[in-house]
């Protein structure tokens, strides 16, 4: 590994740290902008109870000190107690919800990558043939659909009209539809990415050479072409994780999956401020790390990429 690459990783790492720090800072201060404090909505709170509540959440201290305390906690993934769910820590709630969200997200991401690569390569190999046309039309349509619309359409079609899957996301069969609704958009995006980079690679001279010297067609496709065409897909890994995580916020709501998204949406409705802050920061950290990884992997996979 040369010096330039090491420098790039350091620079990229620095940017990631700054990003996470900024997310925490913005989240903290912007939530403090909301006038009246989080307990205003509670009915008939006596001044004593109010003071006790504020002391419990450390809201009686000056803002600077609160910020430092929050920052210290956030580094250790400690976002304090939830304001609306009695006696529960924000991080415990997040971990509980994230376990099922992560399962959903990982399956959806894996499915999107595998299917995206397969259909993308198919479209490129049969360029301008019927298969290519069909794949492109379908993937263009999926790119135009927000995940919550895909989710509602699937719910209507498969749960109510055809009655194949349960509408409830608590069982294994019920997880099929949420996974599909999270998967379709990234899959369509990867199909388009793979197709265009595959078309580019297939017209290169070394593919012609490989074919001319009699390499088996399947070997040309998988070993020579796909390996080189896959790099743009790596750059999409970061944004894809971001998309699936935020998409799961509504999809989980629609299919009643007991995941992080469900807690997040209900915390927005209940104005559970510590929960909103904690979830935002937690998800932002995951997204930032994924972006970092995909950027570094991209440079690692493709030495032609300029590091400057």
């Amino acid at each position, binding site marked *: 590994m040369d010096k330039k690459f090491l420098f790039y990783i350091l620079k990229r790492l620095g940017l990631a740290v700054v*990003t996470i720090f900024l*997310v925490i800072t913005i989240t903290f201060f912007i939530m403090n902008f*909301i006038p009246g404090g989080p307990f205003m909505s509670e009915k008939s709170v006596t001044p004593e109870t109010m003071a006790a509540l504020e002391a419990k959440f450390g809201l009686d201290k000056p803002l600077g000190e609160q910020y430092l305390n929050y920052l210290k906690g956030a580094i250790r993934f400690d976002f304090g107690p939830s304001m609306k769910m009695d006696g529960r820590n924000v991080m415990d709630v997040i971990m509980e919800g994230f376990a099922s969200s992560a399962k959903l997200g990982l399956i959806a991401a894996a499915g999107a990558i595998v299917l995206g690569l397969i259909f993308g390569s198919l479209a490129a190999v049969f360029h301008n043939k019927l298969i290519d046309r069909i794949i492109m039309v379908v993937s263009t349509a999926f790119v135009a659909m927000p995940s919550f*619309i895909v989710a*509602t359409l699937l719910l209507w079609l498969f749960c109510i009209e055809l009655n194949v899957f349960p509408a409830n996301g608590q069982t294994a069969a019920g997880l099929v539809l949420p996974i599909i609704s999270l998967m379709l958009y990234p899959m369509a995006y990867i199909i388009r990415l793979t197709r265009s980079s595959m078309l580019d690679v297939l017209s290169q001279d070394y593919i012609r050479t490989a074919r001319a010297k009699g390499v088996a067609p399947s070997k040309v496709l998988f070993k020579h072409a796909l390996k080189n065409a896959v790099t743009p897909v790596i750059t999409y890994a970061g944004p894809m994780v971001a998309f699936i995580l935020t998409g799961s916020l*509504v999809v989980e709501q629609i299919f009643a999956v007991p995941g992080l998204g469900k807690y997040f*949406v209900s915390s*927005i409705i209940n104005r559970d401020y510590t929960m*909103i802050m904690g979830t935002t920061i937690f998800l932002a950290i995951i997204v*930032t790390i994924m972006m970092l990884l995909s950027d570094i992997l991209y440079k690692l996979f493709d030495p032609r990429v300029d590091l400057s």
Partner: protein
Amino acid sequence: MKKTDVKNLLTKRPLSLHLDTSMWEKASEESKQQKIVERESVTFFKDGMRRLFKNKVAVTCAILLVLIIVAVIVIPMVYPYTYDQQLSLMGDLPDASYNNLKPFEYGATEQAKIEAGEDVFPHILGTDSLGRDYFIRVVYGTRISLSVGLFASIIVLIIGTLYGSIAGYAGGKVDLVMMRIVDIIYSLPDMLMVILFSVVFKQTLAPAIEGTILEKLGTGMISIFLVFALLYWVSMARLIRGQILSIKQQEFVLTAKALGATPARIIRKHLLPNCISVMVISTALQIPNAIFTESFLSFLGLGVSIPMPSLGSLASENLSYIYSDVYRLLVPAITICIIVLSLNLLGDGLRDAFDPKQKK
């Protein structure tokens, strides 16, 4: 030599190796005409439009969009019901027979009118749970979603162009600092920040805009615009900066500088007109993005404020009717898909037609 000999020399004799002198004769007017290039010169814009009109998909999408835009402008003008009019509250007493009507059904008093021989305008898509005509709500929601998309993209365009052109033109340290800021904003997870900002703006903006004209827009809409103004301009700024960087090296910019033009004038008159295709293309692709975001926020309950409808909020309001009246959910959902899809395809078509790099 005599004079006549010269003339003899110039005429070619049969079988001689003499060059044919007619080749050096003056061209006649007729043959001059033939040499003029048949194809008339086309401007960049004309050329692009010609290529755009050849693209059938893009033209279909453009026609579809124009139809939708005309429809959402004209229909509310001629339609007898309004989006926030509760038909059930029209009489002296609340009349529940107007709530949750199916398509082409009528409320009790309307039924009486029809039996008396009067004409009553049908409720094409029925009414919602508060007795509001659903068709006009969808039309109005489409109007809101489209205008949110358009205005948000214009905000992005203005801020991104200003920032990008200043960074690109200034170059050096200014550029470095400005682009670092862009890098950082770019790396923030935008959807999460959008949700966070919307939560906060929805709470804080209400007292700030009370009594002004902005109050009519509602906090939800303004927070969407603010979020776009704060976060979404960065990719536009990057794009414009890249363009400016490459254009500012060219001679005509140097000439303008030598003639004493101010930087502001050079950016306005010489650099930005050369970026216009990039600006149009990315704005066209930004609109569906904004509609996407708006519908997502509305679905979470953070978008436009009630009673104003948007396609996203209509879809989310009617999610519970999926078992009984599924059309109520499908109509706004499919409308969003159609709008986003045609904007995407039109944007792609514009890029193919106007991006000089892809010119064949």
